[in-house]
């Protein structure tokens, strides 16, 4: 019985992963806001880690990272970064923050800015690009992606509350 519940929970996480990937890669990539496209999978990873714990965040982060690297052709950036972000958000909720919407928003802000920094790293240090331009894109990407905290809050919270 416990195994069955575990597999159902695993299946629901997989479903969430696929749905969010489709939304990020096929839907919202066509709807840029302020000239940028959002990162939705990292927001989902942070949510799973934050409400479900660091283990679920780490595992979900690995698969989400692989999908992001496939979509962005950036391997292995996201495959490494997203599990770290998932585990980190889990640890924050376990030791430092209350599990509520505001804390999820703050954790997502931190996680998304970390990811944006990793994305702009090569441009910042290996190419002659104005830092202000990179920071603008990073800030806009983070802002647009943060909007997805609100629609994801309930699904990730409910999913993480399911017993094993």
């Amino acid at each position, binding site marked *: 019985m416990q195994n069955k519940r575990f597999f159902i929970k695993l299946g629901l996480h997989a479903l969430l992963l696929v749905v969010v990937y489709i939304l*990020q*890669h*096929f839907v*919202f*990539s*066509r709807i840029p806001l302020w*000239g*940028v*496209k959002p990162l939705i999978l990292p927001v989902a990873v942070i949510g799973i880690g934050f409400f479900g714990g660091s283990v679920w965040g780490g595992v979900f982060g690995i698969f989400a990272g692989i999908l992001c690297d496939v*979509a*962005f*052709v*950036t391997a292995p950036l996201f495959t490494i970064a997203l599990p770290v972000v998932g585990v980190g958000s889990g640890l924050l909720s376990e030791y430092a923050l209350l599990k509520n919407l505001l804390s999820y928003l703050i954790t997502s802000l931190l996680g998304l800015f970390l990811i944006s920094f990793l*994305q*702009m790293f090569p*441009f910042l240090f290996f*190419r002659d*690009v*104005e830092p202000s*331009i*990179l920071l603008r*894109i990073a800030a806009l*990407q983070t802002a647009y992606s943060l909007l997805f905290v609100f629609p994801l809050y309930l699904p990730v919270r409910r999913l993480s509350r399911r017993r094993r």
Partner: protein
Amino acid sequence: MREFLKKKGLAIAAAALAVAIILGIATHTLGGSSDFISNAVNTVMRPVGSGVAVIAEFLEGIYGYMFEYDRLKTENEDLKAKIADMEQQIRDSAAANEENKRLRKLLELREKRSDFELESATINSWGSSNWSSTFTISKGSNFGIELFDCVVTEHGYLVGQVIKVGPTTATVRTIVDTNLNVGALIERTGISAVASGDFEKMREGKLKLTFIPDGAEILNGDTILTSGRGESIPKGLVIGRVTDAGLDPSALTQYAVITPSAALNELSQVFVIKSFDIVE
């Protein structure tokens, strides 16, 4: 009554015959115009006729509503389906026309560059990253597409290069991506340079011409072609036109911004050059 008919019947019959003859002669003489009696009858009967017509129409309407409704509804649905079919045919025809135009252009390209082995592919999806410019096409290694194959439009305008190949799909990095550098030639002067993606320009759908030799003359409107350096991109493909040429703020080096000839935002079909003759 019988007595009356016995006495006057013959006279009445004769009078009726006389009236009939007179009416016949009058009608014939008037040549199609109504006679007095007809006019009188018609005048009297007109409102009655109109009333009857209105009632008949009303009854026909009720009859139609009761008995024709289902038939009309079915007919309406059939017509709607036919219209939808015809609209679909028009859309298909428009799409076929567009493809036909592209293929005609491609035929011209094939005639000009008979050494090209081309593979047509459609764009599946555009990359969702804000830091690069890529798209995925509908064909991969199953169709002979290989890593670093060059991708062009039907006009032979450079679009990008294949950077990842799967059996059924391939990922193409466009010419405005910051990771793509292509050997370039200024067509008017034959001077070599390098066309490179630039982060700021990428967001405007443009790229830069770099490594321009000192003293090289570059004018707005100059056409930039591929130089064919390396083995992956053939010589002579159009990259784009110079839209902004000048000196850097330091006044030491020249710069030029290229607007690609391939309308990257409007692409739906591209052609992968699987092989070509390398010209030394």
